[in-house]
């Protein structure tokens, strides 16, 4: 059975959100969603709404925090920004992600080689 989309995305989505906030500074939910779509060039098809439980999760972990602000169209919006511990978490996650992808790359190459 293929893993459900939620399972597949959970860790990845967290990392993407953290990286996005790291790169672009404080953003509201819509901004993050737009950015993810731009970067992934629609490879990552997700309902934008799914972002919110993830944002809540990250905030509960203390990796991001939120502040009310005003959006481009003059509406009340919540802006999310990376905290210090979020930055640390990002570094750690990124490192482990790289290790993992290097490992996968080696594995797959090796498999092709034989």
């Amino acid at each position, binding site marked *: 059975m293929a893993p459900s989309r939620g399972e597949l995305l959970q860790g990845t989505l967290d990392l993407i959100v953290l990286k996005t906030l790291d790169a672009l500074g404080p953003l509201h939910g819509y901004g993050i969603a737009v950015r993810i779509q731009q970067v992934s060039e629609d490879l990552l098809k997700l309902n934008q*709404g799914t972002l919110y439980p993830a944002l809540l999760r990250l905030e509960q972990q203390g990796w991001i925090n939120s502040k009310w602000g005003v959006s481009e169209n003059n509406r009340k*919006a919540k802006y999310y920004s990376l905290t210090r511990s979020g930055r640390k978490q990002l570094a750690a996650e990124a490192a482990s992600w790289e290790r993992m992808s290097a490992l996968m790359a080696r594995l797959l190459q090796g498999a092709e080689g034989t």
Partner: protein
Amino acid sequence: MNWLRVAFSRLLGFFRKRRLEKDLDVELHSHLELLTQENIRRGMSPEEARYAARREFGGLEQIKEIYRDQHGLPFFETLVQDVRYALRTLVKSPGFTAVAVLTLALGIGANTAIFSVVKAVLLRPLPFKDPARLVRVNESVEKGRRSPVAYPNYVDWRAQNAVFEEMAAFGDCEMIVSGTDKSERVYCEQASDTYFPLLGVSAAIGRAFTPEENSAPMKYAVALIGYGLWERRYASDPAILGKMIRLNDFDFTIIGVLPKGFLGYSDSSEVWIPMVMRDAAWPQTAQYDFLHNRDIHFHKVLARLKPGISLETAQAEMETIAARLARAYPKDNRQRGVLVTPVTEDYVRSFRAPLLVLLGAVAFVLLIACANVANLILTRSAARDRELAIRLALGASRSRLVRQFLTENLLLTAAGAVAGVTLAFWGLDLLVSVLPVSFPSFTHVNLDGGVLVFASVLAAATAMLLTVFPALSSAHRNINESLKETAKSTAGLRGRRMGRVLVVAEVGLALVLMIGAGLLLKSLSHLLTDSPGFRPDHLVTLRFYVPDRKYEGDGRNRFGPQLAERIARFPGVESAAATFIDPFLWGGLQRGFSVEGHAPISNAEADTVYYQEVGPNYFHTMDIPILQGRDFSMRDSLKVPLVVMVSESFARRYWPGQDPVGKRIKYGNADSSNPWMQVIGVSGNIKYNSLRQDPEAEPVIYGTLLQSEVIINMSLIVRTRTPPEAMLVPLREEMQRIDPATPVYNVATFSQRMHEDSAETRSYGLLLGLFAALALLLAAVGIYGVMSYWVTQRTREMGIRLTFGASPGDLHRLIIGEGVRLALLGIGTGALGSFLVNRAMTTLLYEVKPFEPVLFGALAAALTGVVVLACYVPARRAMRVEPIVALRYE
């Protein structure tokens, strides 16, 4: 620490739910707005743009739901929801709720009350240092029978073992305190110096004994006194140390006062003297040389296991030592083994079986209560079938429904537990006053935290049981069936199957309890009505101490009989006699003896024979028949050869078919230097130790006080003409008038003594009877409930049968036949159960067998009657209905 942070923020979320909800709403809408504008910018119409934004965003409500689950505590939110729902349902059917809560309250309350007694008596640690490592060491004679210890054996054990950190010896006894105040009898202990450190007790004032004080015989006349005695006799004098205390007419110096509440291992002691000072307090027995005589088995021995040493290891090592001692001293130690037991045994042994029986009884009551409530829930859930089916169809998971039922049942049992604990709280004093009063002094029965935890666990377990039982029957059912069928017909099928189980279980449980109570009450009636071998009415006993130094030679021997002669002339007295036993409290001495022309008698056998010394007129006063030969007279004195009388059972055991008069017995081995004593008469068997005693198994040798070697204290038995209760005070005063220095104590009528002796059986019987009655009542209500529900369910079936020509009589037979079958099944189950359970009760029973056919038959018939009645009444009602109405009955 991150989980902590998450938990905290969730907790915060739980309490700020409404605000977060609003925030989320604002946030999501602002997102949708931005998305819509972007879509418009891309050229969509506003309508289209909004629609596309919705699609892109995903299900708004779903997102919110996920978000909600995450930001708060969904478990508790569901719980709050369930509790609210359950409360609403319960309040909607107040009749059901009230009956269920009351039933559970009775069950849980009874359990809580009995458990608080069990906890206080059986589970409370003893008030000594590290009681887990504390053991009793006894000598043993044949098959593990415990015997007190000879002091020289204790000395050798202590010197030779490697398993105990320390050992201590002590002996409990009575003494007369005189001097400063009026003289009184106190309980005391003669103790080795190791006794107090071993128990972990030190003096509150002053100090305990030193090793020196316990190794030089008759050199240090020192004594410790109890806190109560210090308050009572010395008015809590702070300068008590160094004061004198006169014990059995010998002056001891007080060196310490023990802490409040400490009553020694015997749990009644108020004075302690060094072991090696016993001859000062009891010069009468100095001739026996307790400290060096291996044939006087008097002392109690305590020991503390070394850390890491098990009871078994200690037992094995002590057996090796005992075997060595048996080889070294074959004359005295030939059959002497050793027995190491945990000290808790001494305090809880006599309570364990009856208390566990009571605990079992209340557990049965609770089970019956559960069965009743389960039945209520079952009939109620039948009515809720469609509700459940609809909820299942709407997507509720089964586990969700079970959880909701569990919440509902938890609420019920929690209410039951609160009511039950309240009940137990009010009933506890009554319970304790009904129970035998002889619990150790340090047990305090109360509803403490542990008991409340027990009640909560019980309530939770009950709720589980109540949830699981009905759920079992609904777990496999098909939703569609339930939706299609009418509620009635499904409930009929299911109710019948479950109802059967409940009826059988209730009949079985109630029967077990009733048989138990019946056996106990029958034992009690035997105890009270079986003849003790003498005439117990109008009989009074008064114990007194014979001052040793006041009387010389046979003056000491004549003291008791002369006192009896004077009291016999007192107005209202018919006759009086002296004996050295204290009836139903102390039954005399056991000593090794030999019968002329009979094989040597083993220690174990000698232990079943009691030696008593009585004065003239004893048998007449007690109204014990002299079956052969003659009674003692004043002429049987120290100046003539020793004579004895024996009980009927003694004569039967040692001289079957022969004339016992003229036969001879002696103390010790046949070749010992003790004089032969000639049997002059045989008296009828009596009970003297307890009402449970089998006089045939415990024969008596009677000596006469006029030829006694040792006179310390004795009892005056007085037969009165007037009501004996009214004679207690005048008789005591008269004895004080004759000799003001002689303390008189343990004054009672024989009826009082025998009443006390049967108190245990009475109170356990009373309680068990009470619980059995409660069980019967609950079971009857339950059975009636099941049966009448079941019969009502079959009204339609009855109608059909009637239209097809069945007579009402046939239907009655059908229904009652079914009821009787269930009752018989229950009786079978109960019989099996009571066979298993009653084995735990054998120590409580007297003159009854665990299986009493008449009792069993009567109770089984009574229960069957209840079941038949429970069928008959609703069946009659069902039969009166017109067939056509019955067919329409829905």
